[in-house]
């Protein structure tokens, strides 16, 4: 690593000062002269036909400038080309409580809010579907007319011969796992400011500029063009600072289009910022998943087959759903060596806010099920849980049975690291009463090898401009959302050009200025935009090198760039025989340079000074501009064809140029009287290829573990007849600092052959391991298997009681004498009429006392 001067160094984020001092500007901080505030009217019904909207009373309110409804922009859209099922504002039907009906643009927030109450909407209420397994039986009142049985999409994959493998297995584990619905809860609520310029020729609204809290400016530009019927070239999307996305801003959220529709109608800039309640309705989080999982093993623990049936409660629109359900199946592969896989995935529509992409997209819930079941198998076979994982490692480079190419593979070292650091061998099973250790692994893509827009265009393109001032400007469409995108870009450019970080300015995520990058999602930025930056920098570097080589009388290949100097290979600046002291040289030359030196005088100067042994970065840049004219470089990245996966239907999702790997050990204790689980420490090893900025990698690992712990223990969206019962950060309980465990991040570097400087993803992969690591630690502590997340105290206590044969805790029937039939459905859906849906025989909440702990 000593080869690098910037890469691998602990580097403060380039945008840290603005964020920490409050000087940084997020979308909601922006204002424009004459700007109006937009407020959206939401549906109070989960499923209803809109018969009539009368906004005349609202229009009459003083201060109201415009009111728009579905017919003001009737074109459908959706993030996936196969899922154009949304309208910015409902056209004829609303499909969830919170669906968008109308928008008021007014001179103040209070007036806009008051106006909402004056809009009269007549609804015809339709039967609604809240439970995915019920929804799949639907014949009438379908949520979308063209989706039979309310199934958005189903996939049925068979790789190898799973039936045969199950037949020949020594042991088969089978179970139903449920992971309840969670959402991103990013700190910054969604916000969009939209402004039209008046066209000088027509006098009508012309070019549109949109500032928005988005992870995907380019997709937003594209969808705006679609819905507003405008050419993309007339639309500029700018991403200011974003206060966290986690996938919730990785697609076009209704307000982003509604703001533009309202601005067009009002002929004035319109800003909309969601309330927290609206953020919950916009959602696009991780769907509640019902996972029926079956794993076949040999006596030695070798996995011979996996069969998974996954039903995802997708909510009312497609969103990323087709991708989510495919990831759930595809990433059964590429972690362990599994020769036979059967996967049946169902993405189901229900009358609730749409689910979408969330950190660890599609993989997290299935990984919880798989790693839990693997732990059960280890216990059954009397194998150490770390050892059973070692026995199923891949042997890269390889292509998995489902077509995923794996090259760098740091999983073995990750396992070794967490086992050593947690003193697993000495402490597992030895921690005493009600305390335990659990291990689990996970992995994730470094960007999707196939983009969601079916096109051969590069996934990332980066331009670099260097001028006579020696400043390096990098133009990238990659979106900084707090994950360190801008810092990574600056680091790669500076390392490649051998210049200091302070010399590099990153201009990012402005569709007028920056070339296309498909956005910040699926952990693709470092790998793809990083590679594009590297290539752009190398292109400029080549131009500088050829000019510098002439000055130093050497071959361009022998020119070395380092620490703001350019010198000949073999010479180091310290031993340079040049008569000039380096700093003097910089001063004297830049004093004369300043954009004035002509080629002739430069040649004269060279003649005077004779051959140079090194140049300052500025000198080299000036020389290059003098020789080549403008100094610009461009680089792009498209994943190689061999990384793009198989040919089967749905094969496009899952392949990635590289996979990250994680292993974690969690240490927990359980209060056996209350069921409360305390996580004391998590050792988290993550193979990120190469840590370009170790402090940033550690932050991402810690954040992933923390977010995973939230899903494991506390976070759960609770529904009642399609109404979200906890749409606020008071009742949707993300962990607070007091119950956050110590996390020991361990960086493992497998140096990927295709990653920029060997780097892979580090922002998502760790999350999925945390949930099963905690589940397995709970088993080690108190001997219960939890098949439903989150592991709230009541679920833990119910399982403990069942195991001991003690008085059961009833998690479903109510105790309120005025409503004896009240039923709290798993997943928190509260059913008030009747008893709710019949439970599946394997449902975790239905397990009888006898078999609750008896899986080994």
């Amino acid at each position, binding site marked *: 690593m000593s080869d690098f001067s910037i890469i691998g160094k602990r580097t403060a984020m380039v945008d840290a000062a603005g964020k920490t001092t409050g000087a940084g500007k997020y979308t909601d901080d922006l204002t424009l002269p004459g700007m109006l505030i937009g407020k959206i009217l939401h549906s*109070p019904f989960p499923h209803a036909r809109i018969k009539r909207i009368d906004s005349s009373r609202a229009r009459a309110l003083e201060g109201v400038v415009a009111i728009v409804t579905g017919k003001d922009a009737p074109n459908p859209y959706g993030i996936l080309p196969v899922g154009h099922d949304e309208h910015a504002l409902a056209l004829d039907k609303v499909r969830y409580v919170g669906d968008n009906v109308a928008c008021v643009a007014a001179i*103040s*927030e*209070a007036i806009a*809010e008051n106006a909402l109450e004056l809009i009269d909407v007549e609804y015809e209420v339709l039967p609604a579907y809240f439970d995915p397994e019920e929804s799949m039986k639907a014949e009438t009142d379908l949520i979308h007319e063209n989706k039979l049985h309310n199934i958005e999409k189903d996939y049925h994959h068979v790789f190898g011969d799973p039936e045969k493998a199950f037949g020949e297995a020594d042991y088969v584990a089978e179970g139903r796992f449920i992971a309840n619905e969670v959402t991103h809860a990013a700190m910054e609520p969604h916000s969009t400011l939209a402004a039209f310029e008046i066209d000088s020729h027509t006098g009508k609204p012309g070019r549109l500029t949109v500032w928005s809290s988005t992870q995907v400016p380019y997709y937003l530009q594209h969808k705006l063009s679609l819905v507003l019927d405008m050419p993309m070239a007339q639309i500029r999307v700018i991403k200011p600072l974003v206060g966290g996305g986690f996938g919730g801003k990785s697609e076009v959220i209704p307000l982003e289009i509604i703001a533009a529709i309202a601005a067009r109608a009002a002929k004035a800039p319109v800003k909309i910022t969601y*309330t927290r*309640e609206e953020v919950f309705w916009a959602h696009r989080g991780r769907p509640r998943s019902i996972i029926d999982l079956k794993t076949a093993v040999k006596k030695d623990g070798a996995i011979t087959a996996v069969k998974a049936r996954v039903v995802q409660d997708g909510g009312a629109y497609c969103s990323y759903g087709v991708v989510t359900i495919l990831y759930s199946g595809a990433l059964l592969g590429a972690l362990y060596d599994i020769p036979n896989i059967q996967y049946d995935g169902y993405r189901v529509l229900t009358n609730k806010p749409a689910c979408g992409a969330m950190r660890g997209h599609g993989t997290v819930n299935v990984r919880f099920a798989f790693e839990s079941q693997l732990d059960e198998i280890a216990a059954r076979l009397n194998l150490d849980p770390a050892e059973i994982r070692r026995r199923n490692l891949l042997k890269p480079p390889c292509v998995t049975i489902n077509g995923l190419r794996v090259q760098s593979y740091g999983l073995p070292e990750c396992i070794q690291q967490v086992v050593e650091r947690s003193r697993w061998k000495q402490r597992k099973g030895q921690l005493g009463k009600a305390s335990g250790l659990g291990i689990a692994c996970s992995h994730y893509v470094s960007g999707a090898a196939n983009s969601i827009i079916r096109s051969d265009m590069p996934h990332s393109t980066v331009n670099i401009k260097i001028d006579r001032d020696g400043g390096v400007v990098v133009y990238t469409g990659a979106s900084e959302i707090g994950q360190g995108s801008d810092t990574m870009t600056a680091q790669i450019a500076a390392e490649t050009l051998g210049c200091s970080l302070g010399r590099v300015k990153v201009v990012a995520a402005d569709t007028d200025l920056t070339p296309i990058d498909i956005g910040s999602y699926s952990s693709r930025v470092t790998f793809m935009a990083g590679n594009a930056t590297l290539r752009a920098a190398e292109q400029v570097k080549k131009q500088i090198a050829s000019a510098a080589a002439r000055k130093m009388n050497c071959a361009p290949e022998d020119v070395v760039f380092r620490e703001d100097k350019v010198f000949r290979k073999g010479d180091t600046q310290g031993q340079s025989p040049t008569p000039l002291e380096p700093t003097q040289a910089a001063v004297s030359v830049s004093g004369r340079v300043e954009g004035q030196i002509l080629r002739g005088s430069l040649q004269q100067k060279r003649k005077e000074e004779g051959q140079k042994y090194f140049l300052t970065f500025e000198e080299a840049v000036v020389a290059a501009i003098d020789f080549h004219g403008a100094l610009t470089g461009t680089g792009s990245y498209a994943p190689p064809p061999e990384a793009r996966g198989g040919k089967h239907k749905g094969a496009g999702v899952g392949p990635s140029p590289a996979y990250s790997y994680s292993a974690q050990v969690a240490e927990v204790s359980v209060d056996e*009287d*209350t*069921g409360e689980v305390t996580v004391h420490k998590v050792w988290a090893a993550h193979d990120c290829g190469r840590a370009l900025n170790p402090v940033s990698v550690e932050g991402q690992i810690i954040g992933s573990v923390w977010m995973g712990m939230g899903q494991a223990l*506390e976070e759960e969206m*609770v529904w*009642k007849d399609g*109404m*979200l*019962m*906890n*749409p*606020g950060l*008071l*009742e949707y*309980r993300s*962990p*607070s*600092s*007091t*119950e956050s465990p110590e996390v020991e991040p361990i960086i493992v570097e497998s140096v990927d052959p295709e990653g920029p400087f060997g780097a892979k993803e580090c922002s998502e992969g760790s999350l999925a391991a945390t949930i099963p690591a905690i589940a397995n630690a709970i088993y080690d502590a108190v001997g219960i298997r939890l098949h439903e997340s989150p592991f*709230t*105290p*009541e679920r833990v*206590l119910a399982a403990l009681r069942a195991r001991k044969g003690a008085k059961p*805790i*009833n*998690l*479903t*029937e*109510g*105790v*309120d004498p*005025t*409503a004896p039939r*009240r039923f*709290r459905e798993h997943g*928190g859906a*509260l059913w*008030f009429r009747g008893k709710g849906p019949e439970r599946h025989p394997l449902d975790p909440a239905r397990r009888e006392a006898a078999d609750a702990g008896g899986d080994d």
Partner: protein
Amino acid sequence: MSLPEFRLLRPSTVEEAVRYLSQHAGNIRVLAGGTDLIPSMRQRLFEPEYVLDIRHIGELKGIRQGAEVEIGALTSLTVIEHSEFLRRHYPVLAEAASTVASPLLRNMGTIGGNICLVTWRKGCGFCIKKDGDLCHVAPGGSKCWAVFSGDTPPALLCLDAHIEIASSAGLRRIPLREFYTGIGDSYRRLEANELVTRIFLPAASADYRGIYRKLRIRGSIDYPLAGVAVVLKRSNGHVKDARLAITAVNPAPMLIKAAPQMLEGKAVDTNLAEAVGDLAAKTAKPLTTSALTPEYRREMIRVFTKRAVLAAANN
């Protein structure tokens, strides 16, 4: 959400404050710490024409020791939490105060506000308590079951606290246990022209061992999903006097009336503590919320009571 428009009144004496209250009775809300009032107003639970900002009434701040202890209603929860005097002599109150919400909210929130706490959120649509006719937790019923979720009242009930209530007619003083009605939408006996001004802790309640146990999902921020306060005095290893109260499982914080007899004169052991726990659990009537089932919360009243009684008797 924008804050609805209102006129802000800022009295500097209790007399001035209660005069405003009489003038605008029914159309005015009192702002002490604001941690509940401001969010509730943003959610349109209240849209009063006047807001009475009593934060400048200096005489209502602070803890005074005399024949009895007097705590001004405007005393912040942080001050109560860190008061050396209360920690030594009335530890259950300091402990309960220390569990309210988060440090930032305790800096703003007051003891008077915590006693008068309205725990209701628009979150999922209106209900009987405001504008609606539907009860989310007991459908079909017409009684409001809105739960009371203050942390300090069970501690104050155990300490036999009294409160002073001011109005233009003068001052009246009642035991805190008579303040709560047990009906969700009219949960306290406080007329529209009245203001809670002081809390009194009798000297006789001093130096009890005290424990407050709070059920919550997170280690901070959360309201209690169940809460148990116990105070206990021993003599020769036996219980001389004890009191027990629960919160967040009924529309009012409640003293468990039969608990003192059960404990008095006895040496506390696990069986006795369990019996007291059963008694408390029987009194609890938890209803559905967005977190944790009623049955579990009732169970935790049992467990927490047992633990609190054992801890208070043995520490």
